[in-house]
Structures are given as structure tokens and as C-alpha cells.
């Protein structure tokens, strides 16, 4: 069995002549939280849907813990929250979770349902109908639904799109707990700050291909050093934090009075904009 929670190799998906995925390679290890970034139409949702069996790839392979993505055993190991989430308005939170317990073969019973509702900040809402919930509450219920049965791989497509800052924080905390318990998470999000805060690794997709990949800190390259002297404030490109002592010495030797020196790190947003070349969907 593969050690990888998710192993995607050369995944291609075409719609007619249009490439939604043009050969994507991607891995997620158990206990790893990987952020998937890219402009609208880059193929992120298609990739996630291919992994959970909703979309049939044109070519390439995707496996979940060594099992073909979309197969029954792969789906047993996977939890999924769709970007376009909607649950029957007539059902209660408890009924919805119970349905998914039965479909997932979970023996967790009422205890699991109560624990999941508590985890996503909906304690005491078991009997509440979906129709009376706010969009944010429904999205958190969707996260609870995705966690039914204790999936080992969690696929989240824009899981905080309807949440307020408190709700986003809650989801980030949940994701952290899941990672600590060994669950692999593939998080598709437009929120760069969120991805930067919570993800171990970031994969940036553009036009169906991976254009950048790495830990947020690795991707965020230095952008020079800003100095504030009696000559004014300026940025010296190409320098890093390690160059600061020598720079200060050189400036002092040149007779400048140094008031402040600040190494500038690139943000994930800079990396993202470079990678997608400013493209928006």
C-alpha cells in the first residue's frame, strides 16, 4: 500500500478541446495539510472532484492510500466538502449526519454526531433544520458531514467561503487538530492568508498545471532590505537578512546615519501573483 494519502500523477481532464487539467502531479502525505491555490478556472475544483470520484479523468492516475481514486475503498477513506454545498432544507443537522453515518458505515452513533457538531461550533443545534441555518452554519455542518466516519483524507473545496472571521478561525483550528491526528487534508481556497496560516505546503495551479509548489516560507522569497537613513528611505534589492550587518557597516562607513533597517520577505500573495502572472478567472 502506498504511504501517500493522495498520489496524483499526470492527471488530465478535457472537456472537448478544453483542458481543465493538463497533467497535474500532486502528493499529500498522511498528516499533511496542503493548500491548493489558483485563479478561477485553473482546475482546482476539477482536481478535487477527480480525486473523490465525481469527475472521470481523461488520463493519468490518482490514488488514495494506494487505491484508485473514486473506487469504493478510496471513497471510504475520503471526506469531501463541495464548493457548492447544499443539504436538504427539510432535514435537521442530526438527521443529515445520521444519513451520512449510515452511508459511510460509521458505527459512531449519537456520540459521533454530537462530537462533530461540537467540533464545528454547532453544539445544541442537532435538532435544527437546515432551512433555518445561516449559510455559514450550513458550511460548518458540511464540514461535520465530511468528517463523518473519520476519513483519513479530507478534501475541502473552499470550506470557508461563507464563514465570518470567527468561523474561519474555528475551521483553521479544526484543520490543525485533524493534521495533528494524522488526517491528510487538501484545502482548495482563494484565501491566501488562510492557506499561509494553516498549510504545510502550497500548490499553485494555473491553466490545469502546477506552476509552483513548496512550503509557504520557502515560497516567500526575500525581496531585499529597506533602509532608513539621513539620506532618506530606500529599498536595496537582492539582499537578505544575512546581509544586514555588512550593509549597516558599509552605510556607516559611508557617513550615513542609520535609523532603521528592515529585511523584506515576499508574501504568499507576491508568490501567487508571480506564479499566475496576474491571471484571474
Amino acid at each position: 500500500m502506498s504511504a501517500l494519502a493522495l498520489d496524483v500523477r499526470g492527471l488530465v481532464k478535457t472537456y472537448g478541446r478544453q483542458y481543465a487539467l493538463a497533467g497535474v502531479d500532486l502528493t499529500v502525505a498522511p498528516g499533511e495539510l496542503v493548500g491548493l491555490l489558483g485563479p478561477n478556472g485553473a482546475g482546482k475544483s476539477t482536481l478535487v472532484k477527480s480525486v473523490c470520484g465525481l469527475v472521470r479523468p481523461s488520463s493519468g492516475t490518482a490514488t488514495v492510500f494506494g487505491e484508485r481514486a473514486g473506487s469504493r475503498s478510496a471513497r471510504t477513506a475520503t471526506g469531501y466538502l463541495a464548493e457548492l454545498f447544499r443539504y436538504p432544507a427539510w432535514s435537521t443537522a442530526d438527521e443529515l449526519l445520521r444519513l451520512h453515518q449510515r452511508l459511510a458505515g460509521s458505527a459512531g452513533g449519537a456520540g459521533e454526531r454530537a462530537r462533530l457538531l461540537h467540533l464545528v461550533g454547532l453544539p445544541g443545534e442537532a435538532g435544527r433544520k437546515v432551512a433555518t441555518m445561516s449559510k455559514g452554519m450550513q458550511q460548518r455542518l458540511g464540514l461535520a458531514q465530511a468528517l463523518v466516519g473519520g476519513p483519513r483524507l479530507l478534501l475541502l473545496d473552499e470550506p470557508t467561503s461563507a464563514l465570518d472571521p470567527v468561523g474561519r478561525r474555528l475551521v483553521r483550528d479544526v484543520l490543525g487538530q485533524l493534521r495533528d491526528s494524522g488526517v491528510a487534508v487538501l484545502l482548495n481556497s482563494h484565501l491566501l492568508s488562510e492557506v499561509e496560516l494553516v498549510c504545510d505546503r502550497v500548490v499553485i495551479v494555473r491553466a490545469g498545471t502546477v506552476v509552483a509548489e513548496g512550503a509557504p516560507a520557502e515560497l516567500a522569497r526575500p525581496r531585499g532590505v529597506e533602509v532608513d537613513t539621513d539620506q532618506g528611505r530606500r529599498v536595496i534589492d537582492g539582499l537578505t537578512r544575512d546581509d544586514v550587518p555588512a550593509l549597516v557597516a558599509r552605510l556607516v562607513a559611508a557617513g550615513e546615519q542609520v535609523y532603521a533597517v528592515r529585511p523584506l520577505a515576499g508574501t504568499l500573495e507576491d508568490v501567487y501573483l508571480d506564479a499566475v502572472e496576474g491571471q484571474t478567472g
Partner: protein
Amino acid sequence: MNGLRAVWVLALWALRESVRRRVFLVVGLLTAGFIALFALGSSVAFANTKTSYGDLVDAHELAGATLNGLAMFAILFLGCVLATFLTLSVVRGDAEAGLLQPLVVRPVGRAQVLLARWLAAAVVCAAYVAIIDGAVLITLRVTGDWSPEHALGAALLLMLAVAVVAALCVLGSVALSSIANGIATFMLLGAGMFAGLLAQVGHGIGNASLEHTAHVVSWALPFEALYQDGLARTTAGQGGATKFLVNLGPFGGGHEAGNVLLLYVAGYLVLVGALSVVATGRRDL
């Protein structure tokens, strides 16, 4: 998860949805209205057919058979409306609404989802047909002391007919949006019923090819063939001028098909189900 258990779970979920959405309440109220009007109409009809036409025609029999024939048509139509509305969005409609994806990413096959949705709709519609047909039969007995022949067999054929419509609507839902599928299903329903009328016309004017074509269409859309078989069974024992007059009315479309039709419909349902499963399996959600 065991496949049959998944079907059972999802079918119960669909039935619960029907209850919660007050489908049964609305349908029950409207059906009560239909039965009330039917009872009024049949009591008036029976009361006004006391006149004897001599030994040639049994007017009471003619009135009862005609009322029952009209009721069977109405029952088929109402059952088909219910079947259509319960299944028109099973695949594409629910996928577009985002309701289907959370279910099919579970370790449950798409085939089980389809089978469960069809089964739930078929059970609901068959039960509805059984209840309303029973109410019609009781009404005819009470208002005119009249009962058709082979009433149970005819009711079972109507129940099977609405199950066929539900299966066709599930198949249509794979490719068509909810509205388009509803329209398409009602057009098929109309085509089947129109074929029955054409067969009656063909028989009346002695045009064998028109009659044959209409029968082919009835079997291609076998809810119509089942309805015709049911009609024919309820008047199988009549004869003479009464039978002739009955055939001028709603029973003119009756056409006995025998048990071969049941075998054919079983195969038809399997084929439609297989097509639905294959088409859904190939569909990106």
C-alpha cells in the same frame, strides 16, 4: 456498505423527504377533492341511468363501466404526475443543486442511488394508485352498487404503469435539467395516451396499419400498454350491444395483452435501469 442496505437507507431518506415536504398532504387533499367530485358525478350518473333500453343494453352496466374507465384514466394521469415530480431531478437536477455530490462520494454506488430514488418513487406512486383506485371502487359500489371485473388485476397494472413512468423519468434526469425532464416525461405520457386513442380510431375505421402502429408505440411506452390491458380486463365479461357501447367510450382503448406484457415490462424496466446506471456512471458531477 452493503449495496442493498444503501438502497434501503436512501429510499427511506427519499420517502422521508416526501413526508417532510408535505407531498402526501398536498396530494391527499387534491385527491380527496377528486374523489368527492367523482362520487357526486357517479351518483348523478347512476341516478339518471334507470331508463331501460330493453334487453339489448344494460344501461347500469354501461354507466358503471364508463365511470370506471374514466376514473382509471384519471388515476393513471395523477399517478404519472406524482411519479414525474418525484423523480424529475434525481441526477442532473440534484447535481446542479449540489444535493447529489455529498451522497455519491460516500462508499455507495451511483446505481444504488438511482435504484433507491426510483424505488421510493415507485412505492409512493403505487401506493397512491392503490388508495385512489380503492376509493373509486368503493364509490362505484356505494353510489351504483356496481363493481368492475378483475379490479385487483387492473389496479396492479396501473401501479406498474406509474413505476414505468418513474423509471423513464429517472433515465431522463441523467441528461436533462429538471424542467426539461418534466416536459419530456409529460410529452412521452401524452404520446402514449395519444397512441391509445389512435389505436381506437384505427380499430373504428378499420385501418389495420394505424392500429398496429399505435400498438407498437403503446409497447414502446408500456405504461400505455399496461393501462390498455387493465381497461380490457375490467370489461372482459361483457358482450353484445353493451360491450359495443362500452367500447365507444373510454374502454375503446382497452387491449388485452396477457402475461407476456408483464415479462416485457420487467425486461423494459431492467433495460431502462441499466441505461440510467451506465449513463450516470459516465457523467461528471
